[in-house]
C-alpha cells in the first residue's frame, strides 16, 4: 500500500535534516520518496495532508511498566502499546518488575511475542539480579541473546555495591547499561519528599539524600568498572550536579527525567491524592529548576515516563498505603512540548534527541533514518494543538494521572512503524 504524507515539516537532528513543506511517499511501510510527489506517485495512495505538522524519528520511551506477566488487571503488553502509540511512541523499553520478573529468556520471549503484531516495538529490560532480589546476578548473557536492551532491578536499586560491581562488569561484555532506580532502602520507605510539606501533612518523609547516596555510589562504580550506568528518573538537584560532574570526566553515565519530575512539586500532595504519589517522590521547586537546567545543558540525556499503571481501587486509597507511580505515556510528549519546548527550555531538536535519539543510543538500538529504502518509523507532531487531558480517553488500562483536566499545548497526532499507521485515533495497516 502507498501512503503519501503531504506538506510535512521534516526534522531529524542526527541527520541534520530540517526541511519545510516536503512530501514523503511510503510503499509498504518503506520510505520510497522524499520530495515533491508526482501525480503518478499519488495514484492509489492514501493521502494525509500534514500541513503545519512535524514528522520526526519515532519516539522511544525507555522506561515503562507494562505489568504483563502478572498484573494484567493494570496493563497488558497490548494495552500498554496502545497507550504508547496514543502518546506518540513507536517503541518502549519495559521494566522487569513483573511477576515473574524478566530474569529468564522465556519471559523475554513471552513479552516479545505478545508485542510482535503491534505497531510499537517493545524492548524488554532484563532484571539485573535473579528475581530482582539483589543477591545473584541474572543470566545476563541469555537475556541479552533473547533481546533485552539493559538490566535493572527497577523499583529498587541493585542492593549492594558488590553485586552492582558484578552486574556492571558482566553487562559491559554486551555494552548495555545497568539502569538504576537510585534510592537507598534504609533511608527511603516514606510517602513523600522530606520537607516542610511532609511535616505539615504528617506523611512519612523520603529525604532527597536517599537518592543522592545511590547516584554517588553508582557513579563511582561506573568509574571503577567502566560499565555503563543509566540513572533512571532523576529527581534531585544534587543528583543532577553529580551526573554533570561525572560527564565532565567522560564517565559512562547517562540520566533520564520524567515529565512529572520536571513539571510538579511536592505541594501537589496537599490534596492527599494518591495520583501525586510516586517513587522517587515529587521534589521541590529548586529540584525542578535543576531538572530544567540539566535538560538544557545536556546533563539529562533522556525524557522517559516511568509509566506505572495502577488499578483505581489501589490509588483511591490512603496516601501512605497507595502504590507509587502514574500513567505517563499519554501525557509525556505533550508535557514535554508544553513545559520545555513552548517555554523555551529546549529546542525542538533537543526534544527529539531526548525522546528518540539518545534513549536508542543508550540502549544500542538503531535510530530510525529518513532515507529512501528505510522503514518508516515516525512520530507526527502538532506543536500548537491546544487540548485538555481527559483520563477517560487514555488507551492505558489504568487512569491514574495527576494531569487529568490539564490544558496542554502540543501533541502527537500519529505514529508510523512496522507497516502500521496510527493517526487521529485510528489504527490501519499500510
Amino acid at each position, binding site marked *: 500500500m502507498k501512503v503519501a504524507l503531504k506538506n510535512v515539516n521534516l526534522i531529524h537532528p542526527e541527520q541534520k535534516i530540517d526541511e519545510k513543506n516536503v512530501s514523503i511517499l511510503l510503499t509498504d511501510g518503506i520510505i520510497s520518496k522524499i520530495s515533491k510527489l508526482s501525480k503518478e506517485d499519488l495514484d492509489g495512495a492514501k493521502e494525509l495532508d500534514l500541513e503545519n505538522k512535524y514528522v520526526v524519528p519515532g519516539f522511544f520511551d525507555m522506561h515503562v511498566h507494562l505489568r504483563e506477566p502478572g498484573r494484567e488487571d493494570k496493563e497488558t503488553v497490548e494495552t500498554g502499546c496502545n497507550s504508547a502509540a496514543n502518546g506518540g511512541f513507536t517503541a518502549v523499553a519495559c521494566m522487569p518488575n513483573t511477576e515473574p520478573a524478566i530474569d529468564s529468556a522465556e519471559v523475554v520471549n513471552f513479552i516479545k511475542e505478545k508485542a510482535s503484531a503491534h505497531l510499537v516495538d517493545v524492548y524488554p529490560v532484563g532484571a539485573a539480579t535473579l528475581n530482582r532480589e539483589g543477591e545473584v546476578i541474572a543470566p545476563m548473557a541469555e537475556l541479552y541473546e533473547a533481546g533485552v536492551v539493559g538490566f535493572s532491578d527497577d523499583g529498587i536499586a541493585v542492593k549492594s555495591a558488590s553485586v552492582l560491581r558484578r552486574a556492571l562488569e558482566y553487562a559491559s561484555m554486551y555494552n548495555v547499561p545497568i539502569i538504576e532506580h537510585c534510592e537507598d532502602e534504609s533511608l527511603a520507605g516514606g510517602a513523600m519528599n*522530606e*520537607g*516542610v510539606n*511532609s*511535616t*505539615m*501533612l*504528617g*506523611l*512519612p*518523609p523520603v*529525604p532527597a539524600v536517599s537518592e543522592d547516596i545511590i547516584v554517588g555510589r553508582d557513579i563511582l562504580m561506573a568509574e571503577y568498572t567502566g560499565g555503563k550506568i543509566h540513572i533512571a528518573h532523576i529527581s534531585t538537584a544534587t543528583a543532577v550536579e553529580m551526573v554533570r560532574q561525572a560527564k565532565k570526566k567522560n564517565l559512562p553515565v547517562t540520566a533520564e527525567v520524567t515529565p512529572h519530575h520536571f513539571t510538579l512539586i511536592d505541594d501537589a500532595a496537599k*490534596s*492527599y491524592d494518591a495520583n501525586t504519589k510516586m517513587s522517587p517522590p515529587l521534589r521541590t521547586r529548586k529540584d525542578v529548576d535543576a531538572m530544567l537546567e540539566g535538560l538544557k545543558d545536556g546533563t539529562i540525556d533522556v525524557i522517559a515516563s516511568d509509566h506505572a499503571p495502577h488499578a483505581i*481501587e489501589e490509588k*483511591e*486509597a*490512603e*496516601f*501512605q*498505603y497507595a502504590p507509587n507511580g502514574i500513567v505517563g505515556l499519554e501525557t509525556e510528549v505533550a508535557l514535554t512540548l508544553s513545559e520545555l519546548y513552548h517555554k523555551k527550555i529546549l529546542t525542538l531538536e533537543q526534544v527529539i534527541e531526548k525522546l528518540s535519539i539518545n534513549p536508542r543510543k543508550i540502549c544500542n538500538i538503531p535510530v530510525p533514518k529518513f532515507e529512501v529504502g528505510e522503514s518508516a518509523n515516525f512520530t507526527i507532531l502538532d506543536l500548537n494543538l491546544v487540548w485538555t487531558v481527559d483520563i477517560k480517553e487514555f488507551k492505558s488500562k489504568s487512569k491514574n494521572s495527576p494531569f487529568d483536566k490539564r490544558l496542554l499545548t502540543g501533541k502527537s497526532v500519529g505514529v508510523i512503524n512496522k507497516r502500521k499507521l496510527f493517526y487521529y485515533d485510528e489504527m490501519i495497516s499500510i
Partner: protein
Amino acid sequence: MPLSSRHLLGLQSVPKEDIQLILDTAHTFREILERPIKKVPTLQGKTIVNLFYESSTRTRISFELAEKRLSADTVNFSISESSVSKGETFKDTMRNIEAMKVDMVVARHGAAGVPLFLTNICDANIINAGDGIHEHPTQALLDMYSIRQKLGKLEGLKVCIVGDVAHSRVALSNIFGLITMGAKVSVCGPSTMIPRYIQKLGVEVIHNIDEAIQENNVLNVLRIQLERKAKEYFPSIREYAKYFGITQERLDKNGKDILLLHPGPINRGVELSSEVADGSNQIILYQVTNGVAVRMAVLYLLGTLN
C-alpha cells in the same frame, strides 16, 4: 457566629475566631459536666459514627461520652486496618456507612489525610480523631482549653512540646492551634525526634530539657510510643529518661511553677517520673475531663451548623 467550616480536619487552617468559639462553648459544657444529670438534648435525632481504624480506648470513650451527653445516637465501628486490606476498600466501607444515613463521622485512622478523603466521599460532618502522624485537633483544643483555664490566657504564653515531635499528631495540632492563638511555641526532644524543617512552622527547637523548663510557662509532654518505631530514634529508654525525662528534681532545680500537660497514657519513669506524674504541676486528669467538654463543643457546633 457559626464555625467557618463544617468539618474539623485539623487546626492548620482554623481561624482564631473558631478556636475561641470552641473553647468558649466548651466552657459552658464544662459546667454541665458538674451537674448531677449530665445530659442535654442538643443533638437529639443526630446519628454519629465513631469510625476507629486504630484502637484508642481513651479518645473513643471521650467522644462517645460527649455524644451521649448531647443525646446523639452513636454507633461504634472499630476495625483493624489489616483486616480492611482484604477485599473491601476503605472507600467502599465509607460508602456503606454513609448509605445508612449518618450525620457525623468521628474518624481515627493510621494514615494521614483520611479525614480529608472522607469529606470527598460522604456528606456527613467529619471530625478528625487522629490521622496518622498528621493532626489530632480535639486533643490540641482540650490542651488549649486546659491551659487557658489554668493560666487565664493563651496569648503571649510560652509553651514547649516535649518528646517525639516527629511522630506525633498531638504536637502538630498544638503547634498550629497555639500559634494561631498567639502563644510562643517551642519543641524539645532528641534531634532524631524533631522534624527537619519544623522551624519553618514558626517554632523554636531546644535540645536541653532544663532550658525548656526554665524558659516556658507550659510543657506539653508527649508519650514516647514504646510500641512503635520510636525506639529506633533513641539509644535506650534509660538514656531518654535521663536526658529528657521530667523529674521532680529537675522541676525543683529550675525552680518555678510550670504547668505540665500530657495527652496520656503516660509512661511512668520515661517521659515523666512517677512523682511528677502524681505531683502538683501536672493537670493530666483535668485534661481528660475537659476533653469531654471540648468534644461536646465541637460536636454541638458542627452538628447544629446545617
